[in-house]
């Protein structure tokens, strides 16, 4: 695909796709009422055209910001491209954003219009609208429950389409003129960076940024027009923007939207996508689900699984280590495929996956090997929002479990004197919104500072150690990345989250957040009674179980980096409590501070920590937790 990056914008690309494919090719599919509804490129373009004119009729001016918040629906895509066509900038928010987060974004970016999916999102906005708010309209897409709402500026999606229709009739050339005015360097989206460290900043990304990235990515990870992709990750996540928008428009593949968040797995199976790009959490969950299901199944199936997984693991380890696979093992792998992997991939909906990518944060080597073992050619992507998502990626046949691959064509990587990874490419962002100081600090003589520590090996592969601020100094002075141990720990199905503490401390300790579901099942199988998560997590038997898991991980850790003591958290880490980001990354500083009592107790040699605190439960009620956290020492 040849794109003139100076001129091309996402709306222009949509227009040319509509001209090229018309009504003959499906651009989007949405599952509604149990059946898949298809929309052609022509339909896609029409919807965007009308909505864009509608936004203009409402008063959207050049460079105005539009917040889009909701689940994965075609209307979210329409709203985004329509905003850009009208000269505006779209800002995506995670659908589980709290009213407070929403208020902060509305204020920070002087947002003019909010496109909310449903009543739940509208309620959040109405809750926080104050005097002097910059909002001129709140548009809702799903009319369910909205019949009694009477607010100034509240408009239904259909009514905005009608406004667009009317404007289009009065000024037939307006839309084409607006689209033609767009330039490659116009800001397309503001992406609020995940804020794993500090409050979110608004990363400004232009059409050129996103499209150059999509083009470079496509050169090494080829996608075809005929491919299918299922969009189930929040559209506010940059990886999803890359796939559902930049890449889909550039290549022309079909984007499918599942019916509801809880039907994603079933819908994934129905579509059988060729392309997948998800953060580590998704891959970890799939791996954990498989392990859990195997624990629950018949002895015969468990035997088959263990035997053939062994074959797969052996081959994966060889391949990922860059060593050739002997013919005998390849033959065995063929048998393993027929007996296990084919069925397993089918169950997971991954039978037709040709391009599987993981990005956003580091994926543990064990999970990585797991997927290669079952036949998914998973590749690591390294990048940050500030570089339009992708800086490095593995190449086919050159995948290694502990690196993040080679730089994309058009991207350069180098390591600074302090060990920080620096990058340079056409995808590098334009700056932070209204924050010149932070923008200047993000660059080092034209190179983007990633904030990650890393090294480049002889083959050109980049290895990311950890965030520069998180790398620890061990007792012997050597550097250690806590992420390394944490990812190993997270491979265990019993462990959902882990935080390794040890910077400038005599030994390493770990805070473990168990997977309530999996451990609960284990408790049931072992006739252990428990009531709530806190009760389960503070039981001695559960502590012992986790101790075994940690001991196993310790075997593969270097001598100076073995974990000596551990404690189980009495509540699950939650994004609503700011302990995790919305993409599931742990906020080390927050967790370290909130549970400092337990951490200090671990280093003080205590065996127990009494807890008496109030927490907020998922259904909104608050509960008082009075329990004792056990601290164990590993031999």
């Amino acid at each position, binding site marked *: 695909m040849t794109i003139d990056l100076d001129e091309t914008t996402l709306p222009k690309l949509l227009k040319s796709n509509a001209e090229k494919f018309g009504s003959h090719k499906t651009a989007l599919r949405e599952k*509604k*009422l*149990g059946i898949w509804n298809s929309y052609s490129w022509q339909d896609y373009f029409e919807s965007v055209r009308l909505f864009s004119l509608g936004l203009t009729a409402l008063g959207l001016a050049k460079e105005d910001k539009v917040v889009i918040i909701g689940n994965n629906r075609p209307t979210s895509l329409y709203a985004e491209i329509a905003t850009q066509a009208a000269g505006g900038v779209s800002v995506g928010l995670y659908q589980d954003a709290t009213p407070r987060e929403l208020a902060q974004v509305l204020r920070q970016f002087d947002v003019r219009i909010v496109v909310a999916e449903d009543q739940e999102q509208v309620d959040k906005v109405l809750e926080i609208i104050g005097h002097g708010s910059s909002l001129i309209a709140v548009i809702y897409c799903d009319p369910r429950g909205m019949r009694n709402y009477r607010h100034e500026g509240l408009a239904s999606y259909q009514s905005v389409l009608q406004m667009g229709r009317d404007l289009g009739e009065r000024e037939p050339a307006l839309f084409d003129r607006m689209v033609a005015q767009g330039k490659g360097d116009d800001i397309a989206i503001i992406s609020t960076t995940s804020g794993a460290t500090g409050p979110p900043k608004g990363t400004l990304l232009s059409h050129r940024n996103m499209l150059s990235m999509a083009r470079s990515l496509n050169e090494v990870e080829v996608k075809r027009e005929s491919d299918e992709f299922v969009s189930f990750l929040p559209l506010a996540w940059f990886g999803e923007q890359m796939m559902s928008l930049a890449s889909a428009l550039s290549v022309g593949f079909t984007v499918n939207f599942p019916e*509801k968040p809880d*039907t994603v797995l079933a819908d994934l199976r129905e579509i059988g996508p060729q392309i997948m790009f998800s953060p580590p959490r998704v891959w970890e969950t799939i791996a954990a689900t498989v392990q859990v299901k195997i624990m629950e199944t018949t002895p015969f199936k468990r035997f088959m699984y263990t035997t053939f997984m062994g074959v797969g693991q052996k081959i994966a380890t060889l391949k990922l280590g860059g060593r050739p696979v002997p013919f005998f093992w390849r033959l065995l792998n063929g048998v393993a495929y027929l007996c296990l992997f084919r069925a397993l991939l089918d169950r997971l909906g991954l039978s037709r996956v040709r391009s599987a990518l993981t990005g956003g944060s580091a994926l543990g080597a064990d999970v990585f090997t797991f997927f290669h073992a079952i036949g998914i050619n998973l590749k690591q992507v390294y990048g940050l929002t500030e570089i339009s998502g992708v800086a490095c990626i593995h190449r086919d046949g050159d995948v290694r479990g502990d690196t993040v691959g080679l730089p994309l064509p058009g991207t350069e990587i180098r390591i600074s004197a302090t060990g920080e990874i620096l990058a340079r490419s056409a995808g590098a962002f334009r700056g932070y919104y209204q924050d010149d100081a932070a923008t200047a600090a993000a660059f080092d003589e034209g190179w983007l500072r990633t904030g990650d520590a890393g090294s480049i090996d002889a083959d050109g592969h980049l290895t990311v150690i950890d965030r520069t601020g998180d790398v620890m100094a061990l007792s012997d002075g050597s550097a250690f990345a806590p992420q390394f141990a944490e990812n190993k720990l997270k491979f265990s199905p019993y462990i959902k989250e882990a935080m390794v503490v040890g910077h400038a401390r005599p030994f390493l300790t770990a805070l473990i957040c168990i997977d309530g579901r999996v451990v609960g099942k284990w408790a049931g199988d072992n006739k252990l009674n428990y009531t709530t998560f806190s009760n389960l997590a503070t039981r001695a038997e559960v502590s012992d179980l986790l101790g075994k898991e940690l001991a196993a991980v310790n075997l593969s850790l270097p001598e100076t980096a073995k974990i000596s003591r551990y404690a189980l958290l009495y509540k699950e880490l939650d994004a609503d409590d700011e302990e995790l980001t919305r993409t599931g990354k742990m906020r080390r500083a927050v967790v370290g501070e909130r549970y400092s009592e337990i951490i200090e107790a671990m280093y003080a040699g205590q065996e127990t920590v009494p807890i008496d605190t109030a927490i907020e439960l998922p259904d909104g009620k608050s509960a008082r937790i009075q329990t004792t956290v056990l601290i164990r020492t590993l031999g």
Partner: protein
Amino acid sequence: MVQLSCTDIQLNFGGVRALSGVSFEVRQGEIFAIIGPNGAGKSSMLNCISGVYQPQVGKITFEGADISGLPPDQRAKMGIARSFQNIALFKGMTVIDNLLIGRHLHQNAGLLQGGLYFGPAQREEIQNREFVEEIIEFLSIQSIRKKVVGTLPYGYQKRVELARALALEPKILLLDEPMAGMNLEEKEDMSRFIIDTNEERGITVIMIEHDMGVVMDLSHSLCVLDFGRKIADGTPEQVQQNPNVIKAYLGEEHQ
């Protein structure tokens, strides 16, 4: 406009007087709650309305017609649907099949057409499937539509029970303890469904419920039964102040 009225209902089981002289009226489009201690006769009252029990004395009229002698299936045809406290679904069938069975009254294809499945039978099946899918979307049960009912958790079974009742396209919906066994979040969801059913679809709801918070928030009017007799009726505010109700059911504050 009064849609359903019960006059002087008396129901005996041998020597046991389940209901004595119970009378009340339900207006069209309202949510009407029947509350009272256990054993007060609430479920028996609902059973009388739906036709499972025949009261010895008394009259029940629905939309002007006297339905006192009619069997349950006739009452269902007239637009009276109900849910059961203990879940009366076909546990071995899928959710979708259970809901399609709820469309039974609206299906006309005969044995031959249905058996060969062509023409009118096929069109009817598609229409019914669409109707049922809209209910599935209304109650957010897409993820379980192909699951066998017996394998579902209790909370979901209750939702399917409600869905099945809605599949009848009723004018009036009798709900027997719809919130039983649910936690706060599930009760909030169920409450929203009941409100939406009442306001969006215009269906009158008569419900038996023990959660006073739900009853006071949702219902437009209610009546209180105790030992088979009606001891109060009116709006939630009126009933809350009624000293008889407080003594029998709601409870007094002790100093």
